[in-house]
């Protein structure tokens, strides 16, 4: 079986927002909504650190990291369970998707999702340019929408837009059931976290932190499974390093980056919140 998942290397992520914006562009996401947000783990606001500025000239306690957050495509997805009309469902390839024709806009799924990954079209969706962008049709007013792992691209053998457009090579997409895939190898080789693991949602998005990975060093927009060479590295030299390899960055914190207790760091204010 195919079981798509995503690895995000937070050591590589530079918080540039290319994934957040190219997601909106590709998926025709309405103004005021984000399917994919680049959250800051650090201070209370975007691009601010936690800790205090060093007064002694040392490196101090400041700390900041980025956590791109979208639908985690959970194996045990609470949104799927609560949907009264089966509009949200898990596809055979593991992608959690919404049938917008079935969605009745009850937003139970939004309440159930601990990742704040879903948005609701309270108003008539607004697009700029108004004819819309990207490669999928816009969704109507009154439905919930969210990240699809760019299923429309995946079906054509292309990686999701956020993966292809990441200048830091920090996002890797692939088949978690294929143990030779890069996502499987990275999860095996590196310390990875899932967000809110204690909720039992079994997210299929895994976050690397602590030791940096080589990321997604391929220039093609194709999925790894579509490449002639199964390894994304043509010369093989850069293959996944072993843990014994000389590790830089070992001085940086290796503390857990999972989001605890349902707290999600800074979220870009959405135009339409669930505040009715």
């Amino acid at each position, binding site marked *: 079986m195919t079981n798509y998942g995503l690895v995000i290397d937070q050591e590589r992520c*530079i918080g540039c927002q290319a994934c957040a914006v190219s997601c909106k562009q590709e998926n025709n996401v309405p103004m005021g909504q984000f399917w994919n947000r680049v959250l800051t783990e650090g201070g209370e606001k975007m691009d*601010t650190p936690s800790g205090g500025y060093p007064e002694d000239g040392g490196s101090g306690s400041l700390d900041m990291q980025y956590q791109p957050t979208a639908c985690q495509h959970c194996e045990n997805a609470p949104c799927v369970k609560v949907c009264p009309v089966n509009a949200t469902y898990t596809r055979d390839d593991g992608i959690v998707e919404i049938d917008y024709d079935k969605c009745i806009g009850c937003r139970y799924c939004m309440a159930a999702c601990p990742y704040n990954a879903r948005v609701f079209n309270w108003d008539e969706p607004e697009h700029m340019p108004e004819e819309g962008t990207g490669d999928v049709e816009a969704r109507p007013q009154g439905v919930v929408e969210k990240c699809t792992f760019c299923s429309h691209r995946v079906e054509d053998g292309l990686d999701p837009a956020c993966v292809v457009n990441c200048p830091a090579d920090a996002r890797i997409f692939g088949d978690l059931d294929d143990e030779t895939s890069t996502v499987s190898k990275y999860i095996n080789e590196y310390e990875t976290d899932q967000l809110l693991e204690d909720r039992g949602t079994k997210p299929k998005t895994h976050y690397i932190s602590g030791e940096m990975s080589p990321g997604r060093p391929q220039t093609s927009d194709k999925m790894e499974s579509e490449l002639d060479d199964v390894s994304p590295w043509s010369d093989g030299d850069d293959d996944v390093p072993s843990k014994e390899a000389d590790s830089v960055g070992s001085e940086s914190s290796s503390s857990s980056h999972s989001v605890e207790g349902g707290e999600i760091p800074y979220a870009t204010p959405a135009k339409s919140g669930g505040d009715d």
Partner: protein
Amino acid sequence: MTDDGTYRRDVLKAGGAAAALGVGGSGFLQSLVESEDDQDLNASVQSFVGENEVIQTVCSPNCRGKCPIDVHVRDGQVKKIEPHPPEDEQYKRACVLGLSHTQRVYDPTRLKFPMKRADWSPDDPNPEGRGPDAEFKRVSWDEALDLVADKMQSLKADHGAESVLFHEGSGNYGQTGKSFKRLASLFGATQSAWGIDTNVGRGFNRVTGVGAFLPPTNEAEDWENANTIIVWGSDIFSSQFQMDASKILDAIENGAKLVVVDPVYTTTASKADLWLPVEPGKDVHLALAMMHTVFEDETYDEDFLQKRTTAPALIRKDTGELLKASDVFEDGGEQQVVAVEQGTNSPVALEPETGGAYALFGEFTVAGVECQTALTKLRDHVADYAPEEVAEKTGVDAENIRTAIRWLATRGPGGIAPSYALGRYKHGHIFGQAYAMLMGMTGDYGRHGNIHAHHSGGATLAAGNWASPEDADPGPSLTFPNYPDAMIDGDPHQIRAVYSIESNMMGNQFPDRQRFRDAIRSLEMYVVADMHHTDTVQHADIIFPVPHWFEQEDISSGWGSHPHLGYRHKVQEPLWETKDDYYAIQELADRLGFGDRFPETKRDMLRKLAGRDDDIDFDTLFEQGTQKKESVPIVKYTDEFPTETGRIKMYDDDAPSEEGVTFDVPRPLEDRTADDYEKADEYPLMFMQKHSRFRIHSQYEMLNWVREINPEPQLDIHPKDAKARGIGDGEYVRVYNDRGEMVVKAKYNDAFQPGLVNTDQGWWSRDFVEGHLQDLTHNEVSEVGQTMAFYDVRVAVEPAPDDVDTDKYESGNPLGAGAEAAPTGGD
């Protein structure tokens, strides 16, 4: 404009206008969907994958990226942008801004028609009519061009051609500027000379013979070979280099140590192995302490110093000049310097690129003259700068200073990657001199893994003398900081008219904005060509509307951070009545009598220029979209240095001086960052204007997607500084000094050093609640640096007055300030 000559009443409503223009349309829809079964997989989502026409072109601002991109067009409308790997695929790149052209192409701020200020005429310019309330009247291209050409001719007849200034900014990296300069040269106009970001390179150049803006550095593909990278005053992961972020990340993943020197805990600092939180303006002190450490540890690269630098060269104690071979040997050269052999103490004339057992330290008497080596002089000079001695002044822990430079000196090849920020302090050129010498001590030139600047130079089209043909009699040049004096006071000569392309400088990006406003008001004619209705355009008398980059073909070259040239193919025909700058230049040339000096079409011109560069084939470039310029060396500084001695200068006996300080060796000199600066109490906070990831200078300000993330100008301020002034997080503040003020929202940010505040640059007037960040900056430059010192600025901050109108940001409008329509006039 539609084919029947009618105009859409509205400002641009997205692609509707493009469709009305007959551009594209459904004619080129191609369905590549293999079967209906595929679609069924995705029952409720209509996919358009494979239905787009994809046009390869290049993004072209002054960010160094020069990113080759694919533009997806469907139904006659741009739908999305994706990076397109260039010929050498490892340079695939793009950033959040380049990916968002889909919105920029159709933004309401785009200019549509040639315009004339309603109350301007060539004989009665009515200068007071310029500014925020100016009204514009639509004119035809012919009328606009006639007005400009006639006025240029009459100014030339009455006051000389140099009374007209051709000002070129950095807003469009193509070949048009060369034709703009060509016309300026033929006409004899004054030409603009750069006065921004030329500081650090100037100092580096004094040492190595190269460097103008930043010095050359190994191409990005080589950075993964660095073992230590000291990023100095650059948020390299947010600005300019972000499209190549993977290259530094790969170096880190390979085992490199990343050191960041910055008063701000930036995104880059958050990735560092070691962060040195230097106080603003104390970078030279820090560099000298690093030199001190290298001497103390004796970790300097002896072979390199002997072979490629003047470290062993003798300095005469009597005159302070370098001892010359002609002082010692009968047939010795007058430029050649002299060293002594270790042991024998016999003098040797130093040749470039020639090693030997020359004494690096010591005092010697040669030909009856008492001398010491240049390296001895430097060691003595930095003796006072032990890390402990500068720790308090620089704000950096002494042991961390040592650790940083020890990594560079002992872990193999590496480098120092400064940005332009250091040159935004008045005397920033001294840092350029200091780190060039420091890297000479560690031997970090000419090797794989060496880094000398935070982006490389990439490939440039060698177009020869196109900009200044042999038979032309070019006028004088005028550096940016000297504009106001020339326009207002006629010093050094009176500028009466300006023709400006590719620039939002005079109205938005130059410091001391009110002074530049006065300068504009002194002109008889101000012609501005632009893509958008910027603040600068609002001050114009004649407006030439320029198409979006996707509507002009060009060759992207110069200051690209990868070794390719790119062909900027047209994605669509120019919207409305916009026309390529080349059209206006050529039409003006025709009216001024130089029409035969410009090829008829832009493509002819591009083909001609490409033909001048032996390393490029026009047809290959045109067809491939990118062509790697193989002659661009990946590793720099492998040959003799272009100095008098062919060596890096570790001592400069012909050094410039300013304010009583001579730069024979790097000597710290500060302006407003100095502890005893006279107005430090009145304006206690240093004010910088960081480049953010959300704009390139003032470009992309209008992107609605980006404005959702970064809606309005803010003042980054340490909570301690804010609380001491009664300022709450998110409250509006008045930032002021003796030049002006602005009102922006305070953002508590622990990343900022207490005593330092910041507003990211590039916002337009319309984005501020009151004033503008350039109302606070000044236009004073150093004699040697001649570079605008944007960060060498002090301000005071207080809560904003209660009556400021902040509605535009508090009405919950996710689009921020909202896009105001450009003047459409006429319809």
